[in-house]
């Protein structure tokens, strides 16, 4: 799972960090660091909760990439592993 960070929207509520301090990193003023976040599978639940708690909607959960991968791996029709 990937989280797209719109850090221009962040206002430093730190709700994301409260749920998943290992996933969301804050700067010295308490705002989220720039850069999208690649979330390891074991952190997905907490990361999702954190992203959904953001009052500014600064964190967008990007599942498109996972979905693509799924389709690629499991849907033979779209030309995945067809050996």
């Amino acid at each position: 799972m990937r989280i797209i960070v719109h850090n221009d929207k962040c206002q430093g509520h730190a709700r994301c960090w409260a749920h998943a301090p290992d996933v969301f990193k804050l700067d010295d003023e308490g705002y989220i660091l720039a850069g999208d976040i690649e979330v390891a599978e074991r952190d997905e639940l907490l990361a999702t909760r954190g992203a959904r708690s953001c009052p500014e909607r600064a964190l967008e959960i990007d599942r498109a990439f996972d979905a693509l991968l799924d389709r690629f791996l499991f849907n033979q029709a779209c030309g995945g592993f067809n050996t």
Partner: protein
Amino acid sequence: MVRDFSLFTSPGMGPTPDGDPHAAVACAHDAPSIFYSPNNTRDGRGTWVITRAKDQRRVLHDTATFSSHRSIFASALGENWPMIPLELDPPAHGVFRSLLNPLLEPKRVMVLEPAIRERAIVLIDGISAASTNCDVMKDFAFPFAVSIFLHFLGLPDERLDTFVGWGKDLLHGEGVKRTAAARTIVAFIDDLAAVRRKEPTDDFMTFVVEAKVDGRPLTDEEVRGIGVLVFVAGLDTVATAIGFDLAYLARNPKDQQLLRREPDRIGLAAEELLRAYSTVQMIRVAKKDIEFEGAPIRKGDYISCATMIANRDPAEFENPNTIDLAREDNRHTAFAYGPHRCLGSHLARREIVIGLEEWLSRIPDFRIKEDTAPITYGGHVFGIENLILDWS
């Protein structure tokens, strides 16, 4: 477009025994998304009332159209200077936010945690050694919250009662009392700044008088604007939140049991209680004429974004009037939204959570003492005046 609605005078907004002012304002969701309320400030001015969370976000984000400079404190003195950073608009706002943010960012607040916890423990142990009931507001919530913030400002505890009195007069007093309190607080902050200029220590006020923005030291008015805001903001908001939270737990033994059994839930529960019992009304001033959701807002009009209304918006929260301590994805805006997100929010959160944790772990099953009724009220900051809990 005009409705008889006021956070000061509507039913349930004046001091009410066993009142529930938050439920009383939640009825605003039966109204249109914006309406005009002719009497919705302390001085009897009208405001536009924005009832939907989505629209409040629009207002609070659009700092180019909606100014935060209301000079609410200074105007009580017939003056006009901003409390900083609350009443500054961008870009000046950002300069002061960057200066002050590091003092109150989450990781720094964690450093203050042991001192906060110790203060809670001392107070609660004192209460439980003395009796099996107490007035939570007077005996715990106020002394706790105010002493933390005195500590932060670098002031001794001895004057705690005096400060709480000033705060009460300022926020809930009428006319003359309020002006006198405002004058007293300004004089106090000015004095404190002067003392710290001469004899710096390592407290907040010293930091402010020694700080620089844009390569220059702060003016006296800026120092005062910051000092007054920190003073006023810390006086009763956290105490009030703790009061509403403990009143809820006293009336809902099942939830009280749940948090006793699983203290790990207190953090999340505190967020839900912040949502359901938000206490602050934010007001913005229109900088120009604008059509907003069909309403003709004119330059200079007041626009009210009451957190207690937004946080019970059914479009935003499922069953908004149900308190669900396990509610997830709780994007409440008790600490406001946008650039003016409450600077002290992280400290406030920790105080509330630690206060509840220590109270629950040291005081057995509690309820509201028979034949007593906590008095609640609406207004600019919602409040609870007394809360007699009994665990005999």
